């Protein structure tokens, strides 16, 4: 059966989920970090480190899920390091973030050299498209469990930020460190915990890259997802559920080029591949104004102060 142009749409939707999942984890991690009033640009490094750790552990242990867990723990360590460094006086979180990005990628490349060739066990996927006999739809609906976990994490995170004392404290610290101190909240500790948790999520996002899609470990594995997460969080207005939709949007945009290629349109392939970056740039330009502040931005964030 020929699905024709519908094939493009189906492929884009499938790609949105497949490519969007790492965006989802990284942006949720960044969202939590930024809610506490810090920006962690180091998540790019965390992502790559997570990818390497996940792949290596999966290869040695034979369990990809153990790899995912270890990737998260590696990310958590990097996140904790970032926020611990930021706790010192006059240390800028952006600068530390860039340093952590370079440190994370560098460390991953260094430790990951032996893992470029061998093939690790892959994360299993769930066939949600078995009911259909359209191969394109079947391919698109091959969904990894991490995507479903990501949805659960987004919902839980949104609920926690709203309904728990912990979430309220994170938001207060992010809105105004002064107010938080006046209320007797331990500002640094809350930020360290939030950034570490954010790093955990970003690490899992990294393991998805190496253990599911594109499923390999190489130095060019991440193409800036960790950095783009910052723009995604802005576009999502610092809301976890927003992060879910925005990640799917970016994933779909990234899938546009390959999808069009599958129906024979190859012209402008590289332009189509650049769409996520162009969208990121557009978000940054549209949202940057010296005259107004964004709705939902945590007020104590370095960029909004």
């Amino acid at each position, binding site marked *: 059966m020929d699905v024709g142009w519908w094939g493009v749409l189906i492929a884009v939707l499938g790609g949105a989920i497949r490519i969007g999942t790492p965006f989802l984890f990284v942006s949720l991690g960044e969202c939590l970090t930024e809610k506490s009033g810090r920006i962690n640009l180091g998540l790019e490094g965390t992502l790559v480190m997570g990818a390497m750790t996940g792949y290596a552990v999966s290869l040695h242990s034979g369990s990809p899920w153990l790899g995912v867990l270890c990737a998260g723990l590696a990310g958590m360590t990097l996140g904790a390091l970032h926020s611990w460094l930021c706790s010192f006086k006059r240390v800028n979180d952006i600068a530390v973030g860039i340093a952590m990005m370079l440190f994370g990628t560098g460390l991953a490349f260094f430790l990951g050299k032996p893992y470029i060739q061998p093939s690790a066990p892959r994360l299993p996927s769930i066939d949600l498209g078995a009911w259909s006999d359209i191969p394109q739809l079947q391919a698109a609906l091959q969904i990894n469990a991490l995507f479903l976990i990501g949805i659960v994490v987004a919902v839980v995170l949104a609920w926690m930020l709203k309904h728990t*004392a912990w979430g309220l404290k994170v938001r207060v610290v992010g809105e105004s460190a002064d107010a938080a101190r006046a209320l*007797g909240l331990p500002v640094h500790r809350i930020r360290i915990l939030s950034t570490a948790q954010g790093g955990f999520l970003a690490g899992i996002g990294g393991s998805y890259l190496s253990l599911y899609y594109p499923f390999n470990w190489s130095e060019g594995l991440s193409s800036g997802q960790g950095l783009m997460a910052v723009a995604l969080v802005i576009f999502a207005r610092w809301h976890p559920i927003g992060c879910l939709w925005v990640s799917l949007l970016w994933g779909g945009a990234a899938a546009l080029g390959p999808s069009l290629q599958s129906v024979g349109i190859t012209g402008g392939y590289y332009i189509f591949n650049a769409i996520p970056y162009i969208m990121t740039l557009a978000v940054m330009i549209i949202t940057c104004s010296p005259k107004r502040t964004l709705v939902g931005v945590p007020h104590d964030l370095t960029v909004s102060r």
Partner: protein
Amino acid sequence: MIDGVPPDLHACGITKHFGPLTALQAVNLQLRSGQFHALLGENGAGKSTLVKCIMGYYHPDEGTISLNHETVSIRSPRDAQTFGIGMVYQQFTLIPNMTVLENLVISRARLDPLIDWEKEERQLAEFMENMPFQVSLTARVSSLAAGEKQKVEILKQLALQNRILILDEPTSVLTPQEADEMLGYLRALTLGQRLSVLIITHKLREVAAFADEVTVLRKGQFVGTGNVSQLTVSQMAEMMVGSEVTVKPKQRNVQSSKVPKLVLRDIRVKDESGVEVVRGVHLTIHEGEIVGIAGVSGNGQRELVEVLAGQRCASAGTIHAHDQLYQPTREKIMKHKMFCLPEEPLQNTCVGRMSVAENLAFRHFDIEPYVVGGWFISRPALRRGATELIERYNIKPPYPDMPIQSLSGGNVQRAVLARELSADVEILIIANPCVGLDFLAMEEIRQRIVAARNHGTAVLLVSEDLDEIMELSDRTVVMFNGQLVYETTSSDADLGIIGRHMTGHTT
């Protein structure tokens, strides 16, 4: 909500030193149960220091604080809260991105791990029913008007079961209508014996309309206390600013001509939150004239100076210098020689880590002879120029290569003044030039300002120190609530009238 009556509070013989400065000298204050008490005084009179001593931010060097005649030790604001004393600050301490409900909930000392928002909302709504005013609990704080925010601050204190409420200039951010409404509510609460109120204010109209009793401080000294019903507004103004003029105007050698140098027409400025804080300023300054803008801080002076210095954009209005439309570009600044000595010059107009020589050259480093071939800065010329200015203006220590932030406040002030005066300044904007300086440095800087005026410079002097304005200006205008509300020549100046305009009491 609150049971019983609020306790009597008595602060007795409070003395507080900050280094060599005596901020408070044996000050007494008695706040009786259910009283609405106003604390009056000029900037720097020690009002804030006194209430901070009561709140436990500062620990007085001498004196005691007692509640119902029992001496208490208040070591921190948290202690104050356990005694039922709460404070509403000049700046809002609410978290703007959160709802009123969230703000009220987090102010509590103890939070449940899981927050049941419906229950909290129900309880706070019940609590608010007993209050004389209502605020929507679900509204985001940033969407509230200033008056509403102030109400939330007060509600917060009441929800915390505080019975003595201290308010630091609570109406400075409010419109007169909002202020009256809020003070009326507080008045109702005190009349119902549910609350005692101690309010810091400059606005005598509010004192006359709402307060029972007033205590006046001047320069850290206790001036007096009295029943509002037995005092006239003029008496209160006189207690605040003192009766005698303590300074003589400086000698001047030329009569000011009538050549306008700087003309401001309908200048309007908004602050960061979009509130119009300068609301249509019209002012002309002539050659060889010092115009002083008097006023309590926070009435738009800072924003006006920032506009003139080019550090802020006006939302409306025009500036004309020498009859030409003026924009603060480097070209026009040099053409009209319109320079500025803002308050806190180290933060506002210096680069702290750059050397004194570099800082002194900010106005002219890009013109001959400091620049060679239009491109290369000549270090020797820069140093020579700096050395000359250091000598002429007696900047100490006399080393051009030191970072300017290592200089004392007075010397930074001298250095910036040297820079701004050196290029034959024609229009000079000055804000609070003598804050924190010792007597000699103060005297020297004032002499130089008058000397510039005698040379024909048009000077706009913005100062919170009324004595300084009386000493220096040819003409004095009073700024209140973003507008110039009163003008007088120095020969006709009457401190009582000026004081009343500064406090917004014009009838």
